[in-house]
């Protein structure tokens, strides 16, 4: 069975501090990995994705995530957060199974950046 686990439902952090949002997945087949961000009262937006190649992927606003196959993890990190990073972050796994491209979403982590 496939699943995505985000261990932290909320992460409070002060501005300019580093942050890590954890994501673990389980799957019996190869997967593609995504992080989405949801700002208040908005839809989800793609933040970054891992498809193949280098296990470290970066977004345009300073976030990065590393695919670790042995630990089945895809943690999201940022070395210095801003107030504007306050949002909910969703990890997602995509796989192609039974002729269908299926997504599994984690339950989300709310990042609250304090001044």
């Amino acid at each position, binding site marked *: 069975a496939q699943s995505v686990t985000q261990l932290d*439902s909320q992460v409070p952090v002060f501005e300019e501090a580093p942050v890590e949002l954890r994501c673990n997945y389980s799957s019996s087949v190869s*997967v*593609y990995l*995504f992080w*989405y961000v949801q700002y208040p*009262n*908005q*839809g*989800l*937006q*793609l933040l970054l*994705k891992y*498809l193949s190649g280098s296990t470290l992927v970066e977004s345009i606003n300073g976030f990065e995530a590393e695919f670790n196959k042995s630990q089945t993890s895809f943690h999201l990190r940022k070395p210095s957060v801003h107030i504007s990073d306050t949002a909910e972050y*969703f990890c997602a796994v*995509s*796989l*192609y199974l039974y*002729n*269908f*491209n*299926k*997504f599994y*979403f*984690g*339950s*989300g982590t709310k990042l609250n950046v304090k001044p």
Partner: protein
Amino acid sequence: NAGVTQTPKFRVLKTGQSMTLLCAQDMNHEYMYWYRQDPGMGLRLIHYSVGEGTTAKGEVPDGYNVSRLKKQNFLLGLESAAPSQTSVYFCASSQGLAGGWHEQFFGPGTRLTVL
């Protein structure tokens, strides 16, 4: 290029009333999805469609129906609304071709309250 749009943005229903949520995408995507988002539960798939004229049940389909008469539109219907259907509903679309690497694009959401 508007991406994925949803109407209405907000709606309040009384128990037993019916309504239809409309999703439209202008990216010529094959796959379309309806999710509901509830606090602490992430996104749960209600129904999806892999092409014009096709629909299938997702994780939580009870109480909902869908139709995909045109490729660009995906309608979600509630025949007899219940308070348990109070939620934020998101529509998404993806290219959905074989492989699993295509990300989903989300609409801004519809906030539905059933009294």
